[in-house]
């Protein structure tokens, strides 16, 4: 057997991969239980309607159909629980009214999928159609109010100087910005921009399988989720069970990107059906159905305004926006813009006035999609900065640098009262400008223009926020209290040395491709000198793992990784005592490496991990009075969030005849603090950038005025393919954080947060000779072509 000793910072092939590349990975839909039944849903064809009758008799008569459930069967369970219960909570099945196309009205359970599909079609539902409220601006007028029991479609307004009343006393920057606008030496740029609604599209559709054991009085739920513990809490609370009566298992999860960071009605309903029918019940969404059954993301329209001097000093940044919540609030829905508020003023030390109204519409719920609020915030800010730079004729890098927080400003307090841990923005941007030969790119652009080609160079910088702390944020809603689990977003790790000297590491995360098994094994291998092959990392199982928050917000390494580091330190400390006893030396002189331990200065004087474990589990061989066994659990509660940052450049060429955008190069200089596995970090950036490019160029969830989703299939919702994207040219600066002992910040969302506006800045730069000042995403050829025509006419 190979023994790979890993160090934090090293490249190691992933432990996850051998199963996955051989088709032996197990996702929910791959699990089969004896006697299992299959569910299918009857869905609303209307965006808003009253249900006048539901007739299930024909469906029930189909052979193999075991049950058809409506709200009458499940009303007593209450609505779907949400962590942030602002707005209208979703009923488990439509309750008298439907509020978006595709809302589940009834659930059919049958012996196989064909019977279930046939039965779902045989359920007769009669509706009285009602006027729908679709389109953010229209919905915000309350002309059609969606929910009778709410005062307004506007569910909440987030305002920068008053976002957490009673905790932060913040200065209102609006008067100062208004005064600046009166000065006669200022330039004001202002633009309304759309940050369109997106469908996350993890390639694995969501799947659930519940098995309620009456004998053991416990339900096991397999679900494709990023937050298994939260789901367990929600199921327990809904059914009135203690949380140890619910066993949630998230096996391999085929991508999440936030869409599996939710508790869904189907998760509750399959448990309900399994309880009633005394058989396992499964449901797997189809791709088309996913547009109705899984959350969407983004969906903002807003006006960004910058007021500044001609020499580039920014005197105020304002954003006035509407954000689409959809019809019902689920997990974080109304709180998503807060994550944008965290980075509303970006890397800049500037006055801020930010207001985002959360608006209900007759559409599918929105919630976290990779970046969650932060890509939207970065988009408006960085587009506005670019327009300001163009307007005053200044280098876009110089404008940014002039207004950046400087290295010596850290820890730096932003206008909304939070403190950023560490940063060195000027160095990061300068390194990218130099390595990309920005001046050379601009010279190439000039050359291309002289040949009649429209080449553009887009620049954007960003700061984002990960690993939310401190724990007091739980009182703002950052925890799983809504699911009956009083908690904050801390991390957990348990490191167990088994009697044979192998190690098992239990973590509370819910990865969906981030490589936690490898990264966490590296952390432990680095601390304890145990070979990577001898470490197994277990996650996604609520019975095995300590209480875990899950994987989202780029939090796992910075919070749970830190917990595992601390657990490994505790193991190391006890193991040092054991080794000191075995080798008759002092514990301070024990060093762990190469599959065992030795005494410093005498590498030959050593023991293996198997030998150490034996002594640990046979206390008569160990030091007098020492407790047997060798394992430790640690909970890490971060004292602050971490704030990664970076700079991106896109080089594009636009075909002005067709409007087609070709990406010639994409360069990124990211800073996520220390790096545990550079290969995995770069992989996260590749995927994140691709999703930002997807938003910039291709993707959009389109509803017509009647609330029909026109882009529910992958034909109408084009994802980037391999031939749409270039090789990514990545580099990094390293500015560690002192928020956690690993010095890591998080990287899962950075690529997405940095990229969409980089592309738009590049395309607008390419077309600036034609007078184009802005193009809304997605910049599909027709829209680009139209923007060129409009600019020419103006």
């Amino acid at each position, binding site marked *: 057997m190979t023994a*790979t000793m*890993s160090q934090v910072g*090293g*490249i*190691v*092939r*992933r432990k*996850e*991969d051998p*199963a*996955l*590349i*051989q*088709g*032996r*990975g*197990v*996702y929910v*839909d*791959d699990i*089969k239980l004896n006697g299992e039944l299959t569910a299918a849903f009857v869905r609303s064809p209307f965006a808003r309607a009253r249900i006048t009758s539901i007739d299930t008799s024909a469906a029930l008569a189909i052979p193999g159909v075991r049950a058809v459930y409506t709200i009458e069967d499940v009303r007593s369970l209450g609505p779907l629980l949400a962590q942030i219960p602002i707005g209208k909570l979703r009923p488990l099945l439509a309750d008298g009214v439907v509020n978006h196309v595709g809302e589940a009205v009834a659930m059919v359970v049958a012996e196989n999928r*064909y019977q279930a599909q046939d039965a779902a079609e045989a359920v007769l539902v009669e509706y009285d159609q009602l006027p729908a409220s679709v389109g953010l601006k229209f919905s915000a007028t309350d002309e059609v109010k969606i929910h009778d029991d709410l005062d307004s479609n506007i569910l909440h307004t987030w305002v920068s100087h008053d976002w957490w009343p009673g905790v932060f006393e913040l200065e209102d920057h609006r008067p100062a910005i208004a005064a600046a606008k009166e000065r006669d030496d200022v330039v004001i740029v202002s633009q309304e921009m759309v940050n369109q609604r997106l469908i996350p599209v*993890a*390639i*694995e*559709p969501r799947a659930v399988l519940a098995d309620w054991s009456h004998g053991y009085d416990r339900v096991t739920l397999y679900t494709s989720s990023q937050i298994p513990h939260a789901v367990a809490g929600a199921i327990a609370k809904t059914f009135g069970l203690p949380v140890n009566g619910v066993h949630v298992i998230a096996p*391999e*999860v*085929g*991508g*999440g*990107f936030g869409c599996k960071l939710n508790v869904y009605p189907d998760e509750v309903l399959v448990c309900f059906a399994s309880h009633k029918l005394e058989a396992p019940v499964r449901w797997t969404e*189809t*791709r*088309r159905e996913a547009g109705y059954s899984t959350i969407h993301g983004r969906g903002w329209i807003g006006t960004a305004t910058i007021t500044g001097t001609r020499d580039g000093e920014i005197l105020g940044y304002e954003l006035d926006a509407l954000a689409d919540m959809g019809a019902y609030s689920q997990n974080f829905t109304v709180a998503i813009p807060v994550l944008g508020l965290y980075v509303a003023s970006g890397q800049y030390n500037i006055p801020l006035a930010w207001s985002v109204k959360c608006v209900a519409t007759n559409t599918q719920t929105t919630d976290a999609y990779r970046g969650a609020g932060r890509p939207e915030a970065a988009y408006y800010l960085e587009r506005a900065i670019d327009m300001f730079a163009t307007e005053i004729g200044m280098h876009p890098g110089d404008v940014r640098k002039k207004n950046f927080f400087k290295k010596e400003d850290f820890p730096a307090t932003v206008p909304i009262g939070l403190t950023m841990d560490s940063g060195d923005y000027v160095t990061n941007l300068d390194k990218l400008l130099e390595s990309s030969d920005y001046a050379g790119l601009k010279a190439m652009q000039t050359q291309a223009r002289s040949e009649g080609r429209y080449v553009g160079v887009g620049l954007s910088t960003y700061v984002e926020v990960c690993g939310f702390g401190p724990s007091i944020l739980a009182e703002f809603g950052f925890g799983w209290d809504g699911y009956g689990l009083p908690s904050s977003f801390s991390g957990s790790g348990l490191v167990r040395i088994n009697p044979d000297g192998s190690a098992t590491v239990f973590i509370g995360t819910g990865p*969906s*491709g*981030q490589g936690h098994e490898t990264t966490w094994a590296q952390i432990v291998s680095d601390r304890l000198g145990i070979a990577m092959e001898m470490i197994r990392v277990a996650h996604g199982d609520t019975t095995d793992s300590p209480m875990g928050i899950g994987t989202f917000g780029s939090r796992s390494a910075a919070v749970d990784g830190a917990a595992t580091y601390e657990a490994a330190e505790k193991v190391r400390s006890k193991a040092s005592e054991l080794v000191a006893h075995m080798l008759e030396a002092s514990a301070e002189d024990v060093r762990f490496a190469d599959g065992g331990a030795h005494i410093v200065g005498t590498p030959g004087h050593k023991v293996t991990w198997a030998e150490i474990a034996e002594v640990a589990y046979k206390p008569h061989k160990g030091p007098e009075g020492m407790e047997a066994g060798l394992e430790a659990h640690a909970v890490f509660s971060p004292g602050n969030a971490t704030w990664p940052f970076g700079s991106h450049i896109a080089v594009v060429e636009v075909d002005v005849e067709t409007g087609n955008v070709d990406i010639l190069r994409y360069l990124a200089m990211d800073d996520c603090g220390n790096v545990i596995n550079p*290969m*995995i970090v*770069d*992989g996260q950036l*590749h*995927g*994140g950038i*691709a*999703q930002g490019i997807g938003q910039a160029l291709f993707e959009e969830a389109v509803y017509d005025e009647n609330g029909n989703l026109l882009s529910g*299939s*992958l*034909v109408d919702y084009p*994802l*980037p*393919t*391999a*031939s749409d*994207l270039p*090789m*990514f040219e*990545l580099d990094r600066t390293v500015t560690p954080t002192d928020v956690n002992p690993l010095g890591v910040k998080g990287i899962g969302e950075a*690529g997405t947060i940095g990229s969409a506006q980089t592309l738009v800045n590049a395309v607008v730069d390419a077309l600036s000779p034609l007078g184009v000042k802005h193009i809304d995403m997605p910049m599909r050829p027709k829209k680009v072509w139209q923007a060129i025509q409009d600019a020419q006419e103006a």
Partner: protein
Amino acid sequence: MKVSMTVNGRLVNGDVEPRTLLVHFIREELALTGTHIGCETSYCGACTVHVDGEATKSCTMLAVQAEGADIMTIEGMAKGDELHPVQEGFWERHGLQCGYCTPGMIMSGAALIAANPSPTEDEIRHGIEGNLCRCTGYHNIVKSIEYAAAKMRGETPPPADWEEVSA
């Protein structure tokens, strides 16, 4: 309806509903769950298998249409402990994250190299256009296929983006 075909070198028989898709037959009747379903409408490529040597989306075919065919799925690619070079390439070059698109990508990549042993980056990108990946941005998938193609030509694969891969 009765159906029989060869799957990964083994003759298999089944009795299926006529509307059963090949992908469902493979996953549910044969319990070969490495072939995935991402869309069921021929867009994502997660269900790609080889049918008589051709990369084929198994959600676009009925099981009965594969009567008598020779099918290879991801489970048939490794020879015992020895990975297929494309599988090895994906491991060596971090060509996967969540792994859901991976079996389909590997099957498409292998078919692509069989048809064109020295594909350029552009040919690889176009060759896997029918396979969607939401995790990797394709960068390392292209590198993985380049690695495999070189290996299969008996050449040393181009170096990784990073300097060294341990063990």
